[in-house]
């Protein structure tokens, strides 16, 4: 499958690598189909590219590589639409953002991917977690307040 993107040009994606997000994402409700791409210059980074909107892509990372103490608790109601009953079937990534001070990670609302079913969903994790965890070389401890 060939998709057009504003960031990466025209790319070929295996149909098996397309992820369906049945509810879209908050704010991007119309984007239900995404391709997970590897970043060519950085192995810690991936991109979720909308297959229908050329200009919509989200940078994603595995949170534990950046915040080793991150432990995500997700209410069952958030997981049941994905047909996940065991988190071992799931891959968790978080969205990279940017604020005035630098890059941030949205630890409050990770994306859970059902690897077998190729479906995904952005969920709201339990507990006090920041939506803008600022990346820094000093590795700030995971603050309890958002």
């Amino acid at each position, binding site marked *: 499958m060939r998709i057009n993107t504003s960031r990466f040009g025209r790319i070929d994606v295996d149909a098996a690598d397309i992820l369906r997000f049945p509810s879209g994402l908050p704010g991007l409700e119309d984007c239900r189909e995404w391709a997970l791409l590897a970043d060519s210059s950085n192995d810690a980074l*991936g991109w979720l590219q909308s297959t229908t909107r050329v200009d919509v892509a989200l940078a994603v990372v595995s949170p534990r590589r950046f915040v080793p103490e991150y432990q995500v608790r997700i209410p069952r109601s958030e997981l049941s639409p994905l047909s996940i009953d065991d988190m071992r079937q799931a891959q968790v990534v978080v969205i990279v953002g940017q604020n005035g001070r630098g890059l941030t990670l949205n630890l409050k609302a990770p994306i859970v991917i059902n690897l077998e079913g190729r479906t995904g969903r952005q969920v709201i994790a339990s507990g006090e977690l920041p939506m803008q965890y600022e990346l820094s070389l000093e590795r700030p401890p995971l603050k309890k307040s958002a």
Partner: protein
Amino acid sequence: MLVLSRQRDESIMIGDNIVVTIVDIRGDKVRLGINAPSEIPVHRQEVYEAIQRENLRASRLEPGDTQDIGKYASRSPSRPGDAPRPR
């Protein structure tokens, strides 16, 4: 908007499987109990709206913005398969 008056321990039903109960009223704070099927997520509106804003902001990120992100990463994934997998 439909407006209903309820007292403590009274409920409203939405459809035939969502029940919202007034659990407690103290001053200007109301505690609600929500019984809904597990596939229906329930969120505080301000949290949901904050995620919408955050997603829209994040969707404007360009590859040039993230080129230094590797310096913040630990050297190896904490467990195999934990990192975003290239296709």
